[in-house]
């Protein structure tokens, strides 16, 4: 595949090997064992699935809209250079400053530099999907800047001393309210000790705290869902209102967005704004849609910086699979319908994001040389539920299979073949010839019957032991189908 060559080119452009992380199957174990997380994920993804279905069902032209969205995203990515140049021009003319970040480290450096240049030692953050990707909080902390996340889920994770949450999901859903109350009383400044544990009171306590933060903030770091190239307008969709406050109140606003978030015109935006909220949360429109263009004296921030993040994206565009994957508008609908994600959450997929499209994007952009990235395309049963809901019609299972192909091709180039490669080759060799196949049927059945008790096999050696850990296999019958066919009186004998 043509994309294989671009993997190497990318490694040199981003300068460093991707950060170490565990293989998906290993990383998933913690989540699978976390009963509260499992319960909350099931509830939240179930609710979001129902909401999406209802919201999409209201529109008679959903399929036409999806097709329009696909076409817009395809065109945008094909001519990305031109649209980005136009965006830079429009933003600059409107009084903003555009910065280009080739990789995660440069983006983190740029943002920290811009914050420290203001002379303020702290910044609020709101709706920054790239935070994990670029290691924003680590970089700010290292530079001595105190970051105050204002997304509820992030605030809670922060108070708890944990990392930024992997799932851009509804408020702190992965903590039940007793845990949340205990946490607020312990760690949220000015939370009353007699705070009740009902959701409204908890939300009110968080809101009071966040308002004070946002009202006094001088510097804000935010993300953008879309950037309109024609006018230089940045568009942020969210549901908590903290994003709206962050893009309007502080004097300095630093916006970090992937270069793939560009949209050529407002007409294109109109289509995507119909697709995204319904797919993401089942809302006809997101509760808060903020659009802002450059700076306006006396109104909103007086300084606007836009940090445009490449980090492997432009290299990924070199092939068809990459262009298809980067159509993504980050609605998370694919994750919400994914039976794997429903049981693991987003964390095991790594910092570029979770769910089926995360399993595509991370290995696509970061390459498949290391075992963890290579494990991601296999973190799917290929059930296809994701492709059914994707608002820009990304055929995610097809991309996963293509990436699996990349993984295998890269392993073929290694001097020592993997056990799986040997097994797959030998299986293909057996299947390529009727005589070999029939001999294998006979000997396989003999072996398997030796391993069976009472008509079932309860333990198998090697890789197949992973199956019999929790599932039986039926003992193979004495005669294969073809043996029966051959012995049939009427049509017996080979033709």
């Amino acid at each position, binding site marked *: *595949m043509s994309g294989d060559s671009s993997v190497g080119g990318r490694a040199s452009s981003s300068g460093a090997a991707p950060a170490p992380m565990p293989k*998906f*199957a290993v990383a*998933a174990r913690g989540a*699978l064992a976390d009963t509260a997380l499992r319960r909350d994920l099931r509830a939240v993804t179930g609710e979001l699935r129902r909401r999406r279905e209802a919201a999409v069902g209201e529109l008679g032209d959903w399929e036409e809209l999806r097709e329009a969205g696909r076409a817009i995203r395809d065109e945008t990515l094909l001519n990305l250079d031109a649209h980005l140049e136009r965006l830079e021009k429009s933003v600059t003319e409107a009084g903003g400053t555009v910065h280009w970040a080739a990789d995660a480290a440069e983006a983190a450096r740029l943002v920290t530099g811009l914050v420290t240049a203001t002379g303020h030692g702290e910044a609020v953050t709101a709706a920054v999907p790239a935070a994990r990707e670029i290691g924003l909080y680590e970089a700010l902390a290292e530079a001595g800047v105190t970051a105050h996340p204002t997304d509820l889920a992030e605030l809670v994770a922060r108070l708890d001393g944990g990392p930024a949450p992997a799932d851009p999901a509804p408020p702190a859903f992965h903590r039940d309210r007793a845990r949340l109350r205990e946490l607020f009383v312990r760690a949220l400044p000015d939370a009353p000790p007699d705070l009740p544990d009902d959701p409204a009171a908890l939300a009110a306590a968080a809101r009071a705290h966040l308002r004070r933060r946002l009202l006094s903030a001088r510097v804000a770091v935010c993300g953008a869902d879309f950037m309109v190239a024609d006018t230089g307008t940045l568009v942020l969709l969210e549901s908590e209102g903290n994003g709206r406050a962050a893009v309007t109140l502080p004097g300095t606003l630093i916006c970090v967005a992937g270069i793939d978030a560009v949209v050529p015109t407002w007409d294109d935006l109109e289509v995507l704004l119909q697709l995204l909220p319904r797919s993401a949360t089942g809302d006809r429109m997101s509760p808060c849609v903020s659009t802002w263009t450059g700076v306006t004296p006396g109104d909103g921030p007086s300084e606007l910086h836009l940090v445009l993040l490449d980090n492997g994206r432009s290299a990924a565009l070199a092939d068809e699979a990459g262009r298809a994957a980067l159509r993504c508008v980050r609605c998370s609908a694919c994750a919400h319908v994914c*039976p*794997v994600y429903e*049981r*693991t959450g987003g964390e095991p997929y790594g910092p570029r994001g979770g769910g089926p499209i995360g399993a595509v994007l991370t290995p696509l952009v970061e390459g498949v040389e290391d075992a963890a990235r290579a*494990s991601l395309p*296999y*973190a*799917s*049963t*290929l*059930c*296809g*539920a994701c492709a*059914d809901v994707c608002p820009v019609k990304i055929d995610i299972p*097809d991309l996963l*299979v293509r*990436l*699996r*192909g*990349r*993984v*295998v*091709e890269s392993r073929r180039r290694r001097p020592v073949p993997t056990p*799986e*490669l040997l097994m*797959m080759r030998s*299986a*293909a060799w057996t*299947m*390529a010839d*009727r005589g070999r*196949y029939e001999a294998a049927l006979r000997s396989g*059945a003999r072996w398997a019957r030796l391993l069976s008790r009472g008509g*079932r096999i*309860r333990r198998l050696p090697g*890789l197949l032991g*992973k*199956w019999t*850990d*929790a*599932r*039986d*296999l*039926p003992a*193979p*019958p004495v*005669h*294969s*189908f*073809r*043996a*029966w*066919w051959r012995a049939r009186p009427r*049509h017996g004998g080979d*033709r």
Partner: protein
Amino acid sequence: MRVALFVACFNDALFPGTGRAVTALLERLGHEVVFPPDQTCCGQMHWTTGYRREAADLARRFARVFRDYDAVVTPAASCAATVRASYARIARADGDDDLARAAEGLAVHELSEFLVDVLGVTDVGAYFPHRVAYHPTCHSLRTLELGDRPLRLLRAVKGLELVDMPAAEECCGFGGTFAMKNADVSVAMVADKVRHVRSTGADVLCAADNACLAHIGGALSRLRGGVRVMHLAEILAATGSPAAAVRA
């Protein structure tokens, strides 16, 4: 009508009763069944695990073995889906235009499609006095888009009580090599599937693919779940008369 049976390698080895059932059923409906003996495997496992070259070899072989038949019927929904949806991609990945053309010419039907669409029957004269739940496997649901064809066939079976299953359209967690590579997640998925199956009170769980049934059935068996799994073909072949029994 002369029908070539593609039984699928895992049915050949592990579930020969399904192949016998398809044979009995089609012959009962007055058709001639032939079994091209050179058939082996469609290449699905190789393709979905990323082994393009091996998949392409097996796809070429399949196309050669089945190219001369006007109708090929298989009880393996995921193999039918592989031939129909993946062969063109396999051909493209392997740069083999001949394979792409050959794949287009193949007339492969999953059993319920063949019965309902080609033969135009829903009542196949079966008798099966049991409570049955139906699991629409992902390939039958989303790639083949079988819709309610299997359900229409099941509803026409005398004595059969068809029960609805909660979350029926959710994947059972098999996913080929996924069941081994991500065994923990796979088991978490099949645990929920088993819970839903058992909540229906069905005696039998039915599907159009033994791969998924081996997974759900394997978990049910380990748990002594008290529910049998049966391929759709085996239910449709059942008539209750000992003469027509398909058991060898």
